[in-house]
């Protein structure tokens, strides 16, 4: 989905989903092609090199940098422990001054120019998990794997928080209801809950307290987001927030009904496992948040449903994504070719839309997105 921010986010009942699971540095892949993996299965692990902590030994011992090698009691590559002596200088045969290591690890280098000794900390283990339930279909030696599953897929517009998984539970009865505090129940612990047109700040807080793993909702209020995070998101690069829950917003900011198709799809899969990720990056190489519902073999329809890629046509159902008709649903009634002068006096290509209430209006094509029935 290289162009996901062009109108139309993906919401599909069945598709082949491939997830590349790659280590940040080269390491060991611990599964093999054909292995069945669960979201929590570790597929690869490695060690990140430890922190480098310099220490100016020459200054500490009051020796010229060029004499550093004479006073060092540890050489580059030697293991060190915090507090252990790494250099010793003796003056007038009896006065000894020592320099001790400040971390556990090894000596990285000794500089006779600056008098600096670099200590390298112990490596930190890093593990990559499968994230989705599926089968390992490819091993990239020393780097990671590709996990493949057939599943339902919902692409959101914005999210916060990282990868998590759990069974789906509907929290609202329809796609237009606001998910408020009173709807969060104790039995939602460990679940991915689904709301309607928005989730309130109070509901979000209670969900975290209850131990809800993820929330999928139509809209979210920016003011609540700021109050909740304690800062304003300036640039949409998210996913690393540690707030105790992952949020996937499917439609946009404000109160906005979750698309009926999305809501029905999630409803049909209530009780089944969903793997969700809030990570969003709206730049070149766009990343959108997602909900993956791996299907069981018996659920997979034999004939793969082909993705229909159709442009805007007369009759296409659309949603307006900017004021003054923000959030309204309708169908395209005309697609005139010439540029049209808008109220703002900008000239743009437009379309004519008939809204659900029967009223008609003109909207720039850039301000709508296609939705599926």
């Amino acid at each position, binding site marked *: 989905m290289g162009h996901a921010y062009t109108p139309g986010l993906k919401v599909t009942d069945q598709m082949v989903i491939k997830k590349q699971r790659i280590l940040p540095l080269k390491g060991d892949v611990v599964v093999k092609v054909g292995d069945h993996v669960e979201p929590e299965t570790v597929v690869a692990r490695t060690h990140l090199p430890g*922190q480098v902590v310099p220490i100016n030994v020459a200054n500490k011992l009051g020796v010229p940098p060029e004499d550093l090698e004479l006073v060092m009691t540890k050489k580059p590559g030697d293991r060190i422990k915090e507090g252990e002596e790494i250099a010793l200088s003796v003056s007038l045969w009896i006065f000894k001054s020592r320099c001790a290591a400040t971390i556990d690890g090894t000596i990285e280098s000794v500089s006779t120019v600056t008098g600096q000794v670099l200590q390298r900390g112990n490596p930190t283990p890093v593990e990559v998990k499968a994230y989705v339930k599926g089968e390992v279909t490819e091993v990239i030696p020393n780097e990671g794997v590709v996990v493949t599953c057939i599943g339902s897929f919902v692409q959101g*517009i914005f999210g916060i928080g990282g990868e998590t998984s759990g069974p789906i539970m509907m929290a609202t009865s329809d796609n237009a209801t606001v998910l408020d505090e009173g709807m969060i129940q104790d039995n939602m612990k460990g679940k991915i809950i689904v709301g309607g047109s928005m989730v309130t700040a109070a509901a979000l807080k209670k969900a975290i307290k209850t131990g809800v793993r993820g929330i999928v909702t139509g809209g979210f209020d920016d003011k609540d987001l700021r109050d909740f995070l304690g800062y304003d998101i300036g640039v949409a690069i998210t996913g690393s927030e540690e707030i105790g829950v992952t949020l996937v917003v499917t439609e946009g900011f404000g109160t906005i009904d979750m698309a009926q198709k999305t809501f029905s799809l999630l409803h049909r899969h209530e009780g089944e496992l969903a793997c969700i990720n809030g990570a969003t990056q709206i730049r070149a190489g766009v990343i959108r948040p997602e909900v993956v519902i791996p299907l069981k073999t018996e659920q997979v329809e034999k004939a793969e449903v082909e993705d229909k890629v159709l442009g805007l046509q007369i009759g296409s159902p659309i949603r307006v994504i900017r004021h003054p008709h923000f959030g309204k649903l309708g169908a395209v009634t005309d697609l005139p070719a010439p540029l049209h002068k*808008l109220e*703002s*006096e900008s000239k743009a290509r437009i379309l004519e839309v008939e809204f659900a209430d029967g009223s008609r209006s003109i909207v*720039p094509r850039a301000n709508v997105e296609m939705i599926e029935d």
Partner: protein
Amino acid sequence: MAKFDNPDDIKIIVATDCGSTTTKAILIEYVNGEYRQTTRGEAPTTVEAPFEDVTMGVLNAVGELEELSGRKILDENGKFISPARGDVGTDVYISTSSAGGGLQMMVAGVVRSMTAESAERAALGAGAIVMDVIASNDKRLPHQQIERIRHLRPDMILLSGGIDGGTTTHVVELAELVAAADPRPRLGSSYKLPIIYAGNKNATGEVKKVLEDKVDLRVVDNLRPVLERENLGPAREEIHELFMEHVMAQAPGYKKLMDWADAPIMPTPGAVGLIIQTIARQYGIEAVGVDIGGATTDVFSVFRPGDEPVFNRTVSANLGMSYSISNVFAEATLPMVMRWVPFIMDERDLRNRVKNKMIRPTTIPQSMEELIFEQAIAREALRLAFVQHKNFATVLKGVQQQRTIADAFEQSASGKTIVNMMTLDMLIGSGGVLSHAPRRQQSALMMIDAFLPEGITRLAVDSIFMMPQLGVLTEVQPKAATEVFEKDCLIHLGTCIAPSGQSKKGGPVMKYTIDLPSGQVSGTLNHLEMKKFELGIGDDSLPIKAKARFEPERNFDLGAGPGRPVEKEIHGGVVGIILDGRGRPFDLSSLSETERVSHLVSWAEELNIYPEGALKQ
């Protein structure tokens, strides 16, 4: 491709700019004794999958040029036909590129406000995005600095520090930090990360010892050989060289593109900087250029604090009108944005609107209310980017100043900005919100409100962002570059006349007399008043000029000193002459709510910013 000993033999030029989304091509022809841009074409950039060959986008854009101009530029094999003969071929082909994320650099120096800042200036001037500046005194602990270097994956690092003959320890220490981090390049793992060393020459040997085995080390002259002087040229040249050699060579299709081009391919912002410097030098003027994009805002300036013109470029990485719009809102704060809006809007609703624009960056303002709000945000983005620029474009820090007794009363510290709004001659805007505003008056007022020019300042916008191509062209045929710049690239908006000074009680700011082609106009400009007079563009595509005399009141200054009259030939444009009686410094927030709204409406009406009645709704 043909090479020309005499640039005047070049009559036909094709130039492209490969942006991250669009590749733009222009055709420049020598017609009737002058160079003019005659045709333009564009096509999607093809750097990313599935095409992964930048030249495809170039060929498509040039193909559009062929269709529109009727000139055959490419042969059957998709190669440029050169030299030009009749309606076939081009004499030269040149290109710039910012595809694939542009040139991303990290710079390091010993003292943050001295060598590190000079290194930053060198990198920015070469057209790079500076990801981070590491300095011995940047208040981070060494291990934090190492983590940062390791974490970021720049295209190259510029390492500087120390004046020639000064102490070597600090800069070698920096080299050790870099070596310990073992940084890897962003693109391709098959080559070593290029590092340019432009520091104390006496430390070169030690720096080589520390770094040579781990990285691709290049040594150039110290960029700060003495405290009093910067020598950024050699470092910038090496950056361009490495950009071609490493960064470009890694991007798909660029090897072919480099073969085609008759001049080195330049990073887009580097080329924009070149054209602005060329214009400033040629006309002996001081100029500021701004390019406001979706994610970032670039500001370029040439000022003459002494005898020599000084060029500066800054990139405000998170000030932009779509991807970064939410950040502008966060940095500027709601009241600062809303002061430009003459009606009340609900905060919760506004916040959601801004975020919805951020997550769907391609939407456009449909209603007048949305346009006014978006232009209010643009004013703040431009203002903030310019504040950053002013803070960066300074006289060299750390230089001892010789002071006379007269200076003792002035608080001018070393490191004060060289941006002088009173001496600024020309302000050039670029980027969608300025170049494509529905009315040119809106662009003019946005620039005036954001930059607050003082004295007499010409205003212009770049019509189709042609500045990058013209920047490279200055290296091949400077005359063509400046002619096209003046006549086709710039849309001359007019001139802003803004006396500096303040008045507590209101009343007159200055008297004016302007000899317009339609007859002489004269009168008095009052405090907080704005006036506009028509003075357009001539048949030669250049602004019509008019003689004018201004007599500021005694607490107002138009460049000649408080209360002193100024007589000058002023330039017209598609907007005309704007007299700005709001005084400087000017802060809209100092007005009461009713005053603010009534003034915003009256300025908009006087300048014909919005359609009649739009603000009354």
